[in-house]
C-alpha cells in the first residue's frame, strides 16, 4: 500500500519492523497524536512512539506470537489525554512489517 493510500485511511496505522522500528505511520495517527511522521519514522515503537503499549497486553504479544491478529480495548494518551481506543495487533510469521491499527473506541 502506498503512503498516499495509507494516509487516506480513516484509522491509525503504525507499521514496525522486526526490530520494533516504525516504518509506516499514517496521517490519521499523526494528527490524533499531534506528532509528525518525521518524528516517528525510524523510532522504536514501544520505547519512543507508543510507550504506553510497552507491557504484556501489547508489546509482549508481538514478542510471544509471531502470528497474531487480535483486537483489544486499550487506553492511549493522545496529547496527554486518556483516550480509549480499539487496537488491532497484526503480525505474520516471516513478514517484514507488523502493524498496530488504532480506532477510537
Amino acid at each position, binding site marked *: 500500500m502506498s503512503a498516499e493510500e495509507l494516509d487516506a485511511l480513516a484509522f491509525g496505522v503504525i507499521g514496525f519492523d522486526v526490530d520494533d522500528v516504525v516504518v509506516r505511520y499514517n*496521517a490519521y495517527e*499523526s494528527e490524533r497524536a499531534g506528532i509528525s511522521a518525521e518524528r516517528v519514522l525510524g523510532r522504536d515503537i514501544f520505547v519512543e512512539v507508543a510507550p*504506553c503499549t510497552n507491557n504484556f497486553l501489547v508489546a509482549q504479544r508481538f514478542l510471544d506470537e509471531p502470528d497474531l491478529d487480535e483486537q483489544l480495548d486499550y487506553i492511549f*494518551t493522545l*496529547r496527554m489525554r486518556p483516550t480509549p481506543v480499539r487496537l488491532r495487533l497484526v503480525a505474520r510469521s516471516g513478514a517484514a512489517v507488523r502493524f498496530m491499527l488504532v480506532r477510537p473506541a
Partner: protein
Amino acid sequence: MTAVPGGRTTDPPLEDLLQFLYLMPVGVVQCDEHGHVELINPAAARMLAPALKTNDLSTFHPILARLCPDLLHDLTTGERPLGPISGTHRFLATTSGEHDLHVELLAVRVQQGRIMVVILDVTLERQLVEHERAQMIDLNHAVVQNLVAAETALGLGDVDTARRHVSRSADAGRAWLGRQLELLGGGGPGRPLDLVRAERDDDHSGRPDHSGRPDHSGRPDHSNGAE
C-alpha cells in the same frame, strides 16, 4: 511550524514538549479533586492500563478504591492542604502469570482542585529485595546447619570436624558480606577490607557458590532511600 500529513500544522516546541512527556519513564497523572483525569502520560497508562477492569481511565478514584484505598481515603477526607498527601504508597498493580507489576504512588496537591500523581514502576526493585531476602535465608540456613554439625561433632569429641564446620559457617557469612560489598561498589580488586580479602584468599572446600548473585547492571538505584 511543521506540516503534518493531513493538512494540520504543529508547533515544533510543542512537539518537543509532547515528546518529553511521552518519553518520561515516570508515570504522571493530573486529576481534579473528584479524580477526573485531565492529563496522563504514556508511562502512567502503561502501568495502569493492565489494572483497569474496564477500558476507562477517565477517573482515577475507582482505580485507587480497588488498589490503594488508603490513598483514596486520604485524598477525599479531612483538610486539603497543598503538598504531598500521606507519603508514598506501594502495591501490586497487576498480576498475570510472570507479569506482576509493583508500583509506587505519590499524590501531591499542587493547587486547590489539582492533584498530581507520580507513579513509579518498582517491580525490579521488589525482585531485588526478594532475591536478597532469599540469600539471607540461605545464609542463615548454612550458618545454623554448620553450627549444629559442629556442636554434634564436639559432643562426639571430634574437634577437627567441629572446627571445620565452624569455619564453613564463618565462610558463608564472609561470602555474603563480600557479595554485599560488591553490590555497593566496594568489592573490586584491592578493596581494603580485611574480611573481604580473607574471603577472596580463602580456599576452603565448603565455600558457598557465588554464581547466584544478581547482575549489577540491572540493579535499581537505592540512593533515594526507598525500601
